[in-house]
């Protein structure tokens, strides 16, 4: 099956490592209420509107920020995309179809969950829903794809 957007199979392992390390450290940071001063450096902010400071507000400001959460976000997204879009050991039309079906399923399922959360979750907890929702399409996709792959592997003869 010729596809032009799949990475070679060798990147799958590094994808899994990034994805899992990202998710675990992300959950850890979340349970610590996102409080951390680790890796605080100066960063460029395209538009800054802080809760307290006013002199730093405005376009294109250099601000101080802990980049730990940014690194975690990038790890989860890059890891998840890599896991989902690397070739299988044997890549063929059926695997391709499983991947495509999983993507569609993940998108619909994700928005169904988001609608449910919109209706039944309020205030600050909804902030958590929004944070989760940055990653859930990828998580659902990867989970569904591997589940379908595993399921179609069983029962020989």
């Amino acid at each position: 099956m010729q596809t032009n957007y799949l990475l070679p199979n060798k990147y799958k392992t590094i994808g899994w490592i990034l994805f899992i390390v990202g998710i675990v450290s992300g959950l850890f940071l979340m349970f610590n209420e996102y409080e951390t001063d680790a890796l605080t450096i100066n960063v460029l902010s395209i538009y800054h509107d802080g809760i307290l400071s006013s002199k730093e507000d405005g376009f294109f400001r250099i601000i101080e920020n802990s980049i730990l959460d940014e690194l975690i976000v990038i790890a989860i997204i890059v890891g998840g995309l890599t896991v989902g879009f690397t070739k299988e050991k044997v890549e063929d039309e059926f695997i391709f179809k499983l991947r495509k079906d999983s993507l569609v399923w993940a998108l619909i399922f994700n928005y169904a969950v988001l609608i449910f959360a919109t209706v039944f979750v309020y205030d600050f907890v909804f902030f958590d829903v929004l944070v989760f929702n940055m990653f859930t399409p990828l998580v659902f996709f990867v989970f569904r794809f591997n589940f379908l792959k595993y399921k179609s592997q069983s029962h020989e003869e």
Partner: protein
Amino acid sequence: MKNSIKVQRAIHDMTQADLAKLIGVSRQSINAIEKNKYVPSTVLSLKIARLFKKPVEDIFFLEDED
């Protein structure tokens, strides 16, 4: 669409893995095709038929609802 791949495999004494390797697909694909959960592409059907040295119609056939 139904198929007689399983029968053909038995005649040639092949496992799903053997067949998958010979035509260059995953074992999952053969499994899904045999269980009628996946309709293979024309290319793949022709490859399977060629391997068993049979016309495609002897291996894949339409059902009433197709």
